[in-house]
């Protein structure tokens, strides 16, 4: 679901109800196809009772307008989440922004909100539920701020209402542990407003001077007013002074030093001129400079509020689990659990800490932790690990470790997570700054020396002019504008970067490492092939009926693969963990599951290819087997081909070796490593870096976190932006992966454009220095030159990026 702000009102990608009723029914509420049982009420079709419920809810409360707004692809209400733990006083208070006897305010993140109708509905909640006073949506952040009356409602009911409507709040451990959302930084707006105000008024007051008009008293008055207006400007630029000073303290010259130097000289020289009535001063250039710099800063700080680039395991875990104390179930916050506690983990829930399975058998999905997508069978008294997801009926786990001692948290304590890759500071600007300031100081001293011998009265004029005009404002502007523009272009195409400096590192890459499962392959989809005796439609329908009862991922996949059919009568269903399903339908006795359990002869059960297979036995005879293969994402072979010519490639995977046959031909000459644990992946990246390579890593799970952090650019890939992504420098949307070569190319061109713009700025500097050194730099000339250089550089880079993007993204790639 690509729900950036650009397409809130855009037309549906699927036909809306009524327009194409030839083949299948579409749900009136959520717009998805009504596969299986369609519920028909009031002449509308619904795909499930959840959608029908929301429809009635909206109708009963006079909110049917919902269906006439924008597109009708509403989020499908999910299975009711368990929110019993919200009754706990301490937990609910930690989630509230504010509360007193009659008013409580809470802010939730609702990742499933994605269209105008969602905003409309969420702001009309007061109509649906008495007790809700008001609700306001912040769409770019996907947040809702709810005010409700705690005497009428409690937090649990509020959350359940949101859940029923299809907008379950994102609640995880990191939220409750007081890592409150960063309050918006408004300082840049204040600064910009003040500086803009001063800049405009200073320009207005400078007009008589530009026109050459002189007046004995008024000119002086105007100059003093301008001086006064420049003090706020100086104050608003304190950020540059702070940063330059911080750099100097560490014996380090950064880009802000020449800027700070330029600003101070401008101010001092101009004040002197005004106070001693020598002239008019350069305040207009000062205000203009600071104004443009601040705009550049705001433009480059493009943030994606819904995405988080800094994650740790706490955002992955729930806030509380069900604990079994003396046979009674009790909701306990996760961080209060101790080794020795027994907890109940239901289907789909996460295990928060290492423990032992108390009794029975089950299967766990460790895909996020190890990258292996096949469920792992676990027997009684065997160890289970934090991060595993339960498949099947509820299990009891006795904890042996604290949550912080689990396998995942230990991974996070690795050295790699200490180092911070600053996404904001570019190396290029730092390199330039290092020689810029000394060079300017040198020129100033040489010029001063020259004039000392020719006309000492000009020394002050010349030296300050040099320092004023040789401003890296063009340098300081081309970088943020170019990078900000590239950031936005990439964002629109599904590639979200943490900050502008990532663009530069992207341009430097020479080695790309890929994870396999979930990155090059779909994590969910597998193609299903059947081998064996032909099954009759009646038999296929029976198999489908059987798998419908199971939540096992293989069952679900088989269910969606098998053709539609009427559901038969199921008698006697049994799901045996690690073995399969058993049942009787319309007189047939079916068993489907693992080949070992069914005692199938090896003839019908080929191994060697991707592991998962489901064997079918009807009335005692093994009929055949369904092979579920992992499917490559579309366009991967083209992608790897085009990358191969420019970069060195490698692949690291947690899965078994079987996939080597598939991938080796696609990545000729690349190194493929399998059965890699998370630490192995990290070490692999480290070794490449030790060889002097700049490494980019593409991965999707927690098991890639170490490698992603260690690499120069860590790219987390995801199919759903609202879902969890590990800590990274960039987030890539699943279906944009084939555009990676183009993204890299754009970054390289962007950096080249910045270099070119430095050249342009150099020309201006030379011209300006000519005026300065000859003592001819009047305020008017400065006021023309400096904005001209800034604007032309900004225009050049913006146009350059736009043209480059157009060429890169409109080129049709050759199809194989």
């Amino acid at each position, binding site marked *: 679901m690509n729900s950036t702000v650009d397409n809130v009102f855009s037309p549906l990608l699927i036909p809306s109800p009524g327009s194409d009723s030839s083949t299948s029914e579409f749900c009136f509420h959520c717009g998805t196809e009504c596969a299986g049982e369609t519920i028909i009420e009031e002449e509308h079709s619904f795909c499930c009772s959840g959608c029908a419920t929301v429809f009635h809810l909206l109708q009963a409360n006079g909110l049917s307008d919902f269906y006439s707004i924008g597109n009708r692809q509403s989020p499908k209400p999910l299975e009711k989440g368990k929110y019993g733990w919200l009754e706990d006083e301490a937990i609910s208070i930690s989630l509230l922004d504010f509360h007193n006897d009659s008013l409580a305010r809470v802010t939730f993140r609702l990742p499933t909100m994605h269209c105008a109708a969602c905003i409309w509905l969420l*702001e009309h909640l007061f109509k649906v539920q008495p007790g809700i006073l008001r609700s306001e949506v912040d*769409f770019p952040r996907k947040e809702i701020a709810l005010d409700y009356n705690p005497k009428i409602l409690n937090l649990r009911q509020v959350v359940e209402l949101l859940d029923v409507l299809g907008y379950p709040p994102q609640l995880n451990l990191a939220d409750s542990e007081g890592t409150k959302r960063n309050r918006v930084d408004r300082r840049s707006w204040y600064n910009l407003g003040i500086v803009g105000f001063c800049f405009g008024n200073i320009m207005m007051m400078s007009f008589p001077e530009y026109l050459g008009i002189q007046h004995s008293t008024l000119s002086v008055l105007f100059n003093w007013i301008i001086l006064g207006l420049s003090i706020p400007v100086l104050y608003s630029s304190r950020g540059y002074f702070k940063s330059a000073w911080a750099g100097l303290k560490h014996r380090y010259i950064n880009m802000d030093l020449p800027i700070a130097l330029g600003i101070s000289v401008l101010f001092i020289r101009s004040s002197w001129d005004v106070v001693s009535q020598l002239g008019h001063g350069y305040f207009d250039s000062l205000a203009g400079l600071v104004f443009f710099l601040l705009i550049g800063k705001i433009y480059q700080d493009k943030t994606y509020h819904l995405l988080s680039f800094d994650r740790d395991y706490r955002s992955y875990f729930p806030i509380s689990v069900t604990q079994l104390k003396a046979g009674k179930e009790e909701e306990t916050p996760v961080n209060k659990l101790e080794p020795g506690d027994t907890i109940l983990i239901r289907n789909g829930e996460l295990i928060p800490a290492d423990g032992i399975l108390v009794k029975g058998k089950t299967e766990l999905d460790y895909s996020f932790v190890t990258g292996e997508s096949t469920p792992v069978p676990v027997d009684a008294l065997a160890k289970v690990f934090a991060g595993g997801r339960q498949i099947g009926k509820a299990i009891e786990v006795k904890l042996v470790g604290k949550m912080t001692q689990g396998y995942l948290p230990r991974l996070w304590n690795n050295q790699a997570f200490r180092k911070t890759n600053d996404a904001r500071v570019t190396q290029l600007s730092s390199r330039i700054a290092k020689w810029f300031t000394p060079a300017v100081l040198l020129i100033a001293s040489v010029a001063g020396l020259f004039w000392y011998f020719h006309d000492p009265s000009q020394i002050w004029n010349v030296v300050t002019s040099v320092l004023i005009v040789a401003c890296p404002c063009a340098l300081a502007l081309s970088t943020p504008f170019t990078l900000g523009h590239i950031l936005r272009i990439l964002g629109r195409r599904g590639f979200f970067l943490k900050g502008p400096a990532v663009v530069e590192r992207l341009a430097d890459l020479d080695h790309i490492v890929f994870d396999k499962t979930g990155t090059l392959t779909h994590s969910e989809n597998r193609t299903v092939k059947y081998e064996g005796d032909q099954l009759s439609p009646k038999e296929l329908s029976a198999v489908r009926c059987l798998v419908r009862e199971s939540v096992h991922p293989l069952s679900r996949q088989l269910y969606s693969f098998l053709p539609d059919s009427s559901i038969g009568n199921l008698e006697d269903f049994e799901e045996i963990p690690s073995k399969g399903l058993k049942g009787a339908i319309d007189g047939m006795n079916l068993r489907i599951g693992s080949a070992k359990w069914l005692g199938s002869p090896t003839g019908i059960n080929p191994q060697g290819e991707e592991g998962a297979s489901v064997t079918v036995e009807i009335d005692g005879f093994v009929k055949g087997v369904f092979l579920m293969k992992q499917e490559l994402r579309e366009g991967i072979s083209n992608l790897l081909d085009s990358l191969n010519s420019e970069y060195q490639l490698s692949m690291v995977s947690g899965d078994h070796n079987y996939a080597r046959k598939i991938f080796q031909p696609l990545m000729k000459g690349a190194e493929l490593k399998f059965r890699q644990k998370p630490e192995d992946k990290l070490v692999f990246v480290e070794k490449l870096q030790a060889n002097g390579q700049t490494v980019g890593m593409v991965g999707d799970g927690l098991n890639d976190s170490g490698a992603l952090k260690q690499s120069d650019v860590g790219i987390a890939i995801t199919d759903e932006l609202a879902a969890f992504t590990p800590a990274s420098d960039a987030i890539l949307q699943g279906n944009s992966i084939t555009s990676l070569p183009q993204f890299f190319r754009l970054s390289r061109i962007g950096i080249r454009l910045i270099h070119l713009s430095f050249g342009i700025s150099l020309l201006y500097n030379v011209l300006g220095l000519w005026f300065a050194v000859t003592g001819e730099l009047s305020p008017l000339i400065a006021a023309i030159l400096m904005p001209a250089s800034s604007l032309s550089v900004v225009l050049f880079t913006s146009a350059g990026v736009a043209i480059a993007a157009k060429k890169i993204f409109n080129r049709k790639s050759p199809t194989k």
Partner: protein
Amino acid sequence: MNIIFLLLAISIIIALLFLIGFIWSVKSGQYDDSYTPAVRILFDNPVQGDSALPSEKEHEQSGSET
């Protein structure tokens, strides 16, 4: 010509008032979300609930709905 002093003073004061207005608007959070208000104005019916009972509001709305 001395009128210009008065004019200057007035123009600066008025400009200052606008600046104060701008700072107030930033402070009251109007610049935090520049996207949602644009969508909100396109809705047909006013959104607010406050302390009015839902049934009252519904009465109002259903009266104006076609």
